[in-house]
């Protein structure tokens, strides 16, 4: 009963939407319910879901990572060029790619935190520079698809299983990465990230080294993009257009999952569900025969509607319990708009509504005493 109630609540909105979409797909195409088909669907969504996990950590901390798509393209091309047809190079190149991904995340994080450049700008610059550098290095086209052992990661799996017949590696990797992600959210790092998104200044005063915390979020995001790149090498092959636009898909998926741009709250599983919702939506539009030119329009309407619903319903639930609002114009909720507008970090101390200012100056808010 509680489960059902959560499903229709704003927190569960994305899951409800996912259930509706999957049901609609199955009605229109009963083949879809076949376990093999389902596994292939998850295999297809896996790279997007993994990228969404990385983007979740960055957005919940109140930042953006626009460089994920270019990083995927770069990693895919690196894999194609360095592995070649030599099977023995698979493991070393994999390690190199992971190190490269972490390094890009490190650079993103350091420039954002130490040079204080807005993350939107840092990752935008990184997106342009990374893609340009890789295209210049390879002359615009990759050498070719790498050896099969590398590609098996994204393409292959465990075959001849009793019920599902085929379990792709991608699904296992997605499950593992999601488990790691959930574990991180339960650790101090995860909680501090949410706190940074909510009120970065308070976190700094509480003593956390927010530059290292944020940098690690960017590194998680870049590692997610790297893993997605590895899977895409197998699934799609090596081509300069693989990975284009993934950062916008990831941001959309994360926001659909109820994570607020500007940070401060959100559940990682909901972000992954958002990725599934997007792919299910594409699949439904495809199966329903909606003309390809209209698909973008439908996608846009659904995104706006879904985000509006979850945002508005969330605010309705969060009406402050203490303040008695007998006033008729309670249309304007007194609680914080800071979560709703695109403001990374530094929300003022008026979080949670107006609290009555008491006479005791020693309990006054910290930023008023210390100045800035």
């Amino acid at each position, binding site marked *: 009963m509680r489960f059902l109630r959560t499903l229709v609540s704003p927190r569960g909105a994305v899951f409800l939407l996912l259930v509706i979409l999957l049901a609609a797909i199955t009605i229109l195409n009963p083949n879809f319910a076949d376990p093999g088909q389902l596994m292939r669907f998850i295999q297809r969504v896996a790279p997007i879901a993994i990228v969404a996990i990385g983007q979740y950590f960055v957005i919940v901390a109140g930042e953006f990572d*626009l460089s994920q798509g270019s990083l995927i393209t770069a990693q895919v091309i690196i894999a194609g060029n360095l592995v070649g047809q030599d099977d023995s190079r698979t493991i070393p190149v994999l390690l190199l790619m992971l190190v490269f991904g972490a390094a890009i995340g490190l650079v993103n994080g350091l*420039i954002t935190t130490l*040079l*204080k*450049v*807005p993350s*939107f*700008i*840092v990752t*935008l*610059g*990184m*997106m*342009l*520079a*990374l*893609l*340009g*550098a890789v*295209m*210049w290095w390879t002359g*615009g086209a990759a050498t070719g698809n790498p050896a099969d052992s590398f590609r098996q990661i994204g393409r292959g799996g465990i075959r001849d299983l009793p019920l599902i017949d085929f379990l792709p590696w991608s699904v296992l990797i997605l499950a593992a990465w999601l488990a790691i992600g959930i574990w991180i959210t339960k650790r101090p790092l995860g909680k501090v990230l949410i706190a940074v998104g909510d009120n970065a200044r308070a976190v700094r005063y509480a003593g956390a080294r927010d530059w290292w915390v944020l940098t690690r979020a960017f590194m998680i995001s870049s590692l997610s993009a790297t893993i997605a790149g590895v899977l895409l090498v197998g699934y799609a092959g090596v081509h300069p257009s693989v990975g284009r636009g993934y950062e*916008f898909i990831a*941001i*959309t998926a994360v*926001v659909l999952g109820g994570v*607020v*741009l500007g940070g401060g709250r959100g559940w990682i599983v909901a972000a992954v569900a958002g990725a599934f919702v997007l792919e299910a939506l594409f699949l439904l539009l495809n199966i329903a025969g909606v*003309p*390809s*030119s*209209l*698909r*973008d*329009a*439908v*996608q*846009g309407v659904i*995104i*706006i509607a879904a*985000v*509006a619903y979850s*945002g*508005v319903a969330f605010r309705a639930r969060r009406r402050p319990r203490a303040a008695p609002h007998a006033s008729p114009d309670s249309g*304007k909720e007194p609680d*914080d*708009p800071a979560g*709703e*507008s*695109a*403001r*990374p970090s530094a929300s*003022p101390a*008026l979080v949670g509504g*107006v609290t009555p200012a008491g006479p005791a100056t*020693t309990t006054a808010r910290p930023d008023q*005493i*210390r*100045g*800035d």
Partner: protein
Amino acid sequence: MKRLRIDSTVIVLAILVLVIAIGAILVATVGRSFFSPGNIRDILTGMSVLGLVAIGQTLVILGASLDLSVTYVMSLASLIAATTMNGNPANIPWAVTLTLLVCAGIGLANGLIVTVLKVNGFIATLGVGLILQGVLNTSFQGSAGSVPWAFQLIGATGIGPVPISTLIMIGLAVVVWWLLGRTRTGAHLFAVGGDPEVARLSGVRTKPPLIVAHVLCSVFAGLAGLLLASRLGVGSPTVGQQGGYALLSIAAVVLGGTLLLGGRGSIWGTIGGVAIFAVVDNVMSVMQVNPFLKDVVRGVVIVAAVAVYSRRAIVRRRARFGPGGTRTGGDAAAAAAAPDMVAAAVALEAGAKDTGANDTGATDAAATDAGGEVRS
């Protein structure tokens, strides 16, 4: 005491001068002159379209929102204009009016979704952009319409090396600067962008300024689309996407010193940011830099230029307490009085011990209060 206030607009203009200087040297090494009329015209032409979009984007970002739909608005505007004009100069006024009305409508939709439905500007305009893309794909199959010669003149002619389109852009920038600095809507926009909660508590209506900002942003994107239609002679459903105007305009605005958080910024900084992009692009083209390397340079320039002034205190407010603060020398008096205060507190304590323990809590609080205040 008065110090020279170096704010971000001045820094942007300084960066622009530096870039021009470096560019002129580099261009001279390949035997061209940076300041020749053809080169100046190339730079100013490159500024016009992006400049119009960036002016609109500045308004929206000041309101702490974003507009990612500008690319599609530009394409749609070019198509509506070209198909309505259809080669007939008599249709020009109606075509321009219709185009700007449609763009204003799109901006209104953006503004309503952001303010009433309270969807984040990023997502709202991303969604509207997708809807517009669907409309473009459905309704148009490649270039359409035809722009009469009278209208093409706007994109083609100039006064000396300065194109008419640049003059129009500068003129509109002045209008917007006046709007931001001298009207109530402008002031309210700054307030809403800086802190909507404080603005609302101060009695400012938070919805109208932001809606006006979104409407103006889409109208400016429409103007940019009209300019492109004038230059191309036709309307094209991909002309907006070809230039990547959404992200580039945001980058130019931030480069110009406007905060993504909203509430602070200047139009002239944005124009400076657009000029920096145009100069860098022009120098790279003259030097025939590999197009892939051009993207690398663009990315690095964006980050580096913003980094130059991001490290400074982003919000320069005067210190309120402590040295240099608004206290009129009260610190010195408090510090001088400290020993007497401590002595008085000790005496009170001694007296309290004799008469009873009732006031101990209060005197302790008073002692720590005084001590705390002096130390901060």
